[in-house]
């Protein structure tokens, strides 16, 4: 299982702050297109950076069992 975390506008659009994906050994891009395309949040997902286990990651990163994947919309702290 892979856990997906969503924040801010992306969380509002999807209607959930976490999603559990019953698959592993897939890339972030696979996750994005195979499992997240149905939420109608394509623009927000495309704008987001991605972090795996709390570190920013490239979109070809392969996700393993138990990984936590966060979609990070453009940040606005400060």
């Amino acid at each position, binding site marked *: 299982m892979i856990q997906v975390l969503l924040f801010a506008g992306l969380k509002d659009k999807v209607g959930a702050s976490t999603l559990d994906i019953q698959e592993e050994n897939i890339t972030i891009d696979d996750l994005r297109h195979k499992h997240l395309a149905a939420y109608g949040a394509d623009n927000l997902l495309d704008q987001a950076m991605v972090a795996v286990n709390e570190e920013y990651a490239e979109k070809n990163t392969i996700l393993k069992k138990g990984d936590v994947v966060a979609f990070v919309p453009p940040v606005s702290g*400060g």
Partner: protein
Amino acid sequence: MQKFWITADPVEINDCIKAVVRPEAGAISTFIGIAREYTKGKRTLYLEYEAYVPMAVKQLERIGNEIQLKWPEARASIAHRIGRLEISETAVAIAISSPHRDEAFQASRYAIERIKEIVPIWKKEHWEDGTKWIGDQKEQIAYKNEKIMEEAEE
């Protein structure tokens, strides 16, 4: 003493100052970002900040490490508030200590700019006529990973 933290409680710049004061310091520069009521004439009622807390703390620590690479004698402390903020309350507090003023001023500016690039914190504006999550305040045309993956090289 912790030097980088995210909190739902009010942020006090003095806590950041205390975290960086040391005998080698001859200067401490401070910066606070506060909740603005008027943005180009539009009135904000209050702000709401959300963070991916454990990662945000790591990214604040990373900024501290980047500062130490760029200005080896500078030390940083950064606190960021989350939750509901009333107008003029402190959203972010930064203190930098260094032997001389120049590094402290430079590193302080660097810290706030990096926060706006890499720290997973989001601001939601609450206006009289609606709300909006704010993104990409630096107005980069493409919000891509380059700024994120780039390390402090100097």
